[in-house]
C-alpha cells in the first residue's frame, strides 16, 4: 500500500505528468456531467408536466429509455457504436468528437444524469401546492414569471434531498469512464494493480478516496439543505 501511494500518489491526485488524472479527472467528469445534466433537466422537467401529450411524450420516451438501460450500454453505444456509423465517419467534426473517449464519456454521463434529474425535478414541480400557484395567478403573474418566481425556486428546494442522492450515484457512475480510456481514479487504480499485482491495496486505496468524496458531498448537501430548506425545520 505504501509502495502504491509512493509511486502512484501523484497520479491518484491530479496528473501523470501529461494529462489530468485520478481525483481531478473524476471530479471534473462529475462537475461537467452534472452541470450539463442540470441544464438539460430543468426545461425538460417543465415540458414533462405539460398537458399536451405531443410535448410530454418525447420527454417521457427520453427518460424511459435512458432510465431503463444501463449506463454502461449507453456509454458503449456512444463510444464504440457511433464511430462505426457511416454518417459520423464522413463528417469531420462528428468524427473528431466521437473519436475522443472523454467527449463520449461526458456526453453519455450528461444524457444519463439529465434523464434522472428530469424525473426528479418533474416530480417536484408536480408536487407544487395548488395554493401557491393560485396565489401567484391572483397577483397577475404571467406564466413565465410564475415559473421563474414561484414554481422553479420552490421545486428545486424540495428536490434537493433527492438530487443529492443522484449526484452521489453519478459520482459512483463516473467509474465507468475508464472503459472509454479516460484516466479517472479507477484507471489509475487499475494501472497500480497491473504494476504491483496487489489488487487489494490498489482498489482499497481508490475505494477510500471515493468514500472521502462521497462523505464530502453528503456533508455539503446537508449544509445546503440546512440553508435552503430552513423553513421546513421543526
Amino acid at each position: 500500500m505504501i509502495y502504491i501511494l509512493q509511486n502512484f500518489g501523484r497520479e491518484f491526485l491530479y496528473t501523470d505528468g501529461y494529462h489530468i488524472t485520478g481525483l481531478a479527472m473524476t471530479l471534473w467528469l462529475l462537475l461537467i456531467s452534472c452541470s450539463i445534466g442540470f441544464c438539460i433537466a430543468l426545461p425538460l422537467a417543465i415540458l414533462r408536466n405539460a398537458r399536451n401529450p405531443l410535448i410530454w411524450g418525447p420527454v417521457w420516451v427520453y427518460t424511459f429509455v435512458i432510465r431503463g438501460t444501463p449506463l454502461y450500454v449507453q456509454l458503449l453505444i456512444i463510444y464504440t457504436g457511433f464511430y462505426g456509423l457511416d454518417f459520423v465517419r464522413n463528417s469531420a467534426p462528428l468524427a473528431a468528437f466521437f473519436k475522443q473517449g472523454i467527449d463520449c464519456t461526458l456526453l453519455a454521463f450528461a444524457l444519463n444524469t439529465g434523464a434522472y434529474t428530469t424525473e426528479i425535478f418533474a416530480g417536484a414541480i408536480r408536487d407544487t401546492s395548488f395554493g401557491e400557484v393560485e396565489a401567484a395567478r391572483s397577483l397577475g403573474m404571467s406564466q413565465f414569471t410564475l415559473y421563474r418566481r414561484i414554481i422553479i425556486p420552490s421545486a428545486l428546494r424540495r428536490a434537493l434531498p433527492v438530487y443529492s442522492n443522484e449526484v452521489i450515484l453519478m459520482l459512483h457512475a463516473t467509474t465507468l469512464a475508464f472503459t472509454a480510456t479516460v484516466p479517472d481514479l479507477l484507471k489509475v487504480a487499475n494501472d497500480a494493480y497491473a504494476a504491483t499485482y496487489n489488487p487489494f491495496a490498489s482498489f482499497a486505496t481508490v475505494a477510500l478516496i471515493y468514500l472521502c468524496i462521497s462523505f464530502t458531498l453528503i456533508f455539503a448537501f446537508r449544509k445546503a439543505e440546512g440553508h435552503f430548506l430552513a423553513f421546513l425545520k421543526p
Partner: protein
Amino acid sequence: MLNLAGYGPQIFQGTIVTVELSLLSLVVSFIIGLLGASAKLSKSRFLRGLATVYTTIIRGVPDLVLMLLIFYSLQIWLNDATDYLNSIQNSIDFEVSLDPFTSGVITLGFIYGAYFTETFRGAFMAVPRGQLEAARAFGMKPLLVFRRILFPQMMRYALPGLANNWQVILKATALVSLIGLSDIIKAAQYAGEGTFRTFFFMSIAGLVYLFLTTISNGVLLLLERKYAVGVRKAVL
C-alpha cells in the same frame, strides 16, 4: 430487417445469463438485507455497529470499484487459503477457482445487500409495535412472529424500495461483463466486432434491458397490489 448475422443464439444465451445473474444476486442481497436490517435493529451494540459500518462503506464506494476489489482479491484470498490447507495435508490437491458468474453473484449480492438493509430497516420500523407485542403475547416464537406478522406487513412498506433496488441490480449486471462474464453485453460486443455493426448490436442489448426493466415494472405493480390487500387509501 432484423439481421442478426447468426449471432442471435449468442445474444439470447447472454440474455439468459443476465437474467440468472440478476435473480440470484437479488436472492443473495435480499437475504443479506434481512440479516443486516435485523442486525441494525438488534439490541447488541456490536451487531449494530457492524451493520452500520457495512452499509456506510458499501453505499459510499462505487459498485464497480467494489466489484473489481472483491473479484480480484477474493480469488487471491481463496488461493492463499487453499495453499495453506494444502500445506497442512499434502494428500490431496485442493483448489477453488471462482468463475465470473459466481463472483458476480457474490459481489452484487454483497453490494446491494447494503441497500436492501436500509430498505428493510425502514420497513421493519414502519410495522406498528403493538402488533409484535400482541403476537408475542399469543405465545408465538420469534421466527413465527417474523413469518406471520412482521414479514407480510413489512413487505408492503419495503416494496417501492425493493422495486427500485431490483431495477438497479438489473442494470448493474452490465458491469459484470467487465470482469469477464459472457452476458448480453459481451455477446453484443463480439457480434459488433465480428460484423462492424457495433451500434446495431449494442442497441439490441439496450432494447433487451429496456424490455426486462419494463416487464419487471409490471410484475412489481402486481406484487404491490397483492401486498396492499386490506389497505385503504385516503380519497382526496
